[in-house]
């Protein structure tokens, strides 16, 4: 009898989770009318809109329906020269001389204006990048505003950050940002640079330039002295022009590890300072004593947040063997409930893949995963007919050496692996060229501290995942890059100690 009871108990642990999947949601689209997008954008240089020297523009499309949203200037070397000299001039003539408390007030002002225009920014972010409106509205835009707000206050407090050390700004900062969190990354880079007294030349990614250009409008409206922030658009070649410009003092790059390596090589032999925030293949670890339902929510958030276009995405799941079956069952059930579709719909969980190219990359990896012998499972959801979409996918039966367990996919694809002991999982989790982030799910505090200490990752989340805050430093170990952004660690990277 007892045996039988036990059996049923175990069985009931793996029964289908009741998420009321039969419930269907009516469309709840956010209105496009709350946002205005100009048909054409020039570079933002020296406080004004400047036509590209080469006269060329390229389209920015909505990845959810492949329709053109606007066209933006294609920057070349001449444009970069113009922007850098504007930034240099602003640094020497105004920004460096301005009392720190006044600098702070400008940054506070920008923070406020981002908040005032939050709805518009969120809509444009979603249109341009494909992320669900819920995420751009509740995460990207507010966090961007928070970054300006947090760093504004640092401007006149640097002397307290480093007692007995006099700091000064570096000069002109060249900043190149990715397409996964366009506005947030712009804020993440610009706010601390301004607070520490540097001026900026920023290039947003070619697929998602629009919110950065809206930010340029805000900067213009804030009366920030001309040239303090310059925003130029273009693809990789424009980025290379920034990296190679001799009058730039600091390069801050967020993007792929491959490009990060190119940048480190390119700045070799120069006096440029560099911080690189690159790729990752985060291990998310579930121990048998973890609250499994919460852990499953965390894993789902860890890998499917922003379509998996997250450098710190929890793309390797390590589950303790004793609960693996249960967790995988629960994961699959939960995946079924994820709503994939129109990013502007407030119910959507997973929006559009950022570009055709990225969708191809993800599909290539899914193929590789199958070829390597891993078992694929994908949600049965219907995909929209137009646009770039990918079903939430997971692989079980994955070997540590499989490419889908080693390489960054940057899409909604989870690799599930199992382990038995703490030591084993630490060894496996650390066995990666990357080291950006990790997650631990357990009820035991001692386990959390043991793992956080031994995990070679810049950020370790315990019983949560993908939490960001301007006060919290962020950055990688090993091939995930160097330098820390966030908190006052970022201030260090932007100051010269005299």
């Amino acid at each position: 009898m007892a045996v039988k009871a036990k059996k049923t108990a175990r069985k009931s642990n793996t029964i289908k989770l009741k998420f009321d999947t039969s419930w269907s949601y009516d469309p709840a689209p956010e209105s496009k009318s709350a946002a205005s997008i100009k048909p054409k954008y020039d570079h933002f240089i020296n406080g004004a809109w400047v036509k590209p020297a080469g006269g060329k523009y390229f389209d920015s499309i909505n990845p959810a329906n492949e329709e053109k949203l606007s066209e933006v200037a294609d920057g070349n070397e001449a444009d970069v020269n113009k922007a850098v000299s504007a930034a240099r001039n602003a640094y020497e003539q105004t920004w460096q001389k301005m009392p720190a408390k006044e600098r702070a007030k400008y940054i506070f002002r920008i923070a406020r204006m981002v908040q005032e225009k939050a709805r518009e920014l969120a809509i444009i972010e979603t249109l341009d990048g494909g992320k669900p409106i819920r995420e751009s509205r509740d995460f990207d835009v507010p966090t961007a505003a928070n970054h300006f707000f947090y760093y504004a206050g640092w401007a006149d407090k640097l002397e307290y950050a480093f007692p007995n050390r006099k700091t000064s700004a570096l000069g002109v900062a060249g900043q190149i940002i990715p397409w996964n969190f366009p506005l947030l990354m712009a804020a993440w880079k610009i706010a601390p640079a301004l607070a520490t007294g540097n001026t900026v030349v920023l290039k947003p990614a070619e697929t998602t330039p629009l919110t950065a250009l809206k930010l340029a409008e805000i900067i213009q409206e804030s009366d920030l002295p001309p040239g303090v922030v310059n925003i130029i658009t273009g693809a990789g070649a424009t980025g290379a022009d920034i990296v190679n410009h001799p009058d730039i003092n600091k390069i801050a790059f967020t993007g792929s590890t491959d490009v990060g390596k190119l940048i480190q090589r390119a700045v070799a032999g120069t006096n440029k300072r560099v911080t690189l925030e690159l790729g990752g293949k985060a291990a998310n670890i579930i121990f048998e004593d973890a609250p499994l339902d919460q852990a499953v929510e965390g894993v789902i958030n860890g890998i499917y947040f922003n379509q998996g276009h997250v450098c710190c995405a929890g793309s390797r799941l390590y589950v303790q063997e004793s609960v693996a079956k249960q967790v995988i069952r629960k994961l699959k059930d939960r995946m079924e409930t994820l709503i994939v579709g129109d990013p502007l719909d407030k119910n959507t969980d997973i929006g559009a893949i950022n570009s055709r190219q990225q969708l191809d990359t993800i599909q290539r990896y899914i193929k590789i995963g199958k070829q390597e012998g891993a078992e694929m499972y994908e949600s049965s959801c219907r995909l929209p007919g137009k646009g770039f979409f990918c079903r939430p996918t997971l692989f079980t039966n994955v070997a540590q050496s499989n490419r889908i367990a080693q390489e960054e996919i940057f899409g909604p694809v989870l690799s599930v692996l199992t382990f038995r002991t703490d030591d084993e999982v630490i060894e496996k989790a650390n066995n990666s060229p990357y080291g950006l982030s990790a997650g631990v799910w357990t009820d035991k505090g001692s386990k959390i501290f043991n793992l956080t200490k031994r995990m070679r990752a810049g950020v370790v989340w315990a019983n949560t995942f993908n939490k960001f805050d301007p006060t919290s430093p962020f950055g990688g170990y090993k091939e995930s890059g160097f330098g820390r952004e966030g908190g006052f660690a970022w201030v260090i990277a932007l100051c010269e100690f005299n």
Partner: protein
Amino acid sequence: MEKTIKKSSLSISNNGLEKKPAAKRLEVLKTYKIYIGGQFPRTESGRYYIPVNAAGEKLANVCLCSRKDFRDAVVSARGAFSGWSGRAAFNRSQILYRMAEMLEGRKAQFIEELMKQDSTKSKAEKEVNLAIDRLIYYAGWCDKFQQLFSAVNPVASSHFNFSVPEPTGVVAIIAPQQDSLLGLVSVMAPVIAGGNTCIILASETKPLCAVTLAEVLHSSDLPGGVVNILTGKPAELQSWMADHMDVNATIYCENNSEVQQLIQQKSAQNLKRVFLCRKELGKP
């Protein structure tokens, strides 16, 4: 060199038999070895070079380390990393202090070696004293830097969020070339105080103190592999040091801009952190 030894040993044996006036005692020469994984091998390559001082005297048959020696050293540095970084900061502090004690006890030997390598008595004394004091300075840092640079971050969500500095990993160091002891101690001490392990290529022209320092480290309870000391030519090894995929950071202290560039470029292979030290660091 070998010839000299044979000659003098002959004259000793003659002494006893022929009852000539008592001869000077034959000095026992030291074989300068390298230090890998807590052991003192010669280079696996069997090669040597003979650095010469300003007076033209040969210093020793110093190991001319190979790429393979460096790779072996990386293996032991990596092996020692988890143990060393896992030690209590207080314990690391004690070990660094112990190094200073051991160095103090061997002062005379280091002064003698420094003088052999073109230093004057007073300069040599000053250099050794500074090296000892620097070890003590960094011994004190072991359990303080973390406190200074850690933070509980006031995040806006209902989470407890803290950040602490952690060691980078395995560090490849090309020691300052112009001095034998102080430069090396100055780059080594902060690296191991922070819980990293390292491979140090000693000054090419003044390698004697590096080897003797290994003996000091060896008697300071420093676990084998935490510091590995090689001798040889930076021109031969620097590109391998910056290239190696299991090294996390490189330190280079000279002002040669070509080499700086080479090291930065090669380091991009696996995104090593590169530290180009300011020149004054190595100066006594």
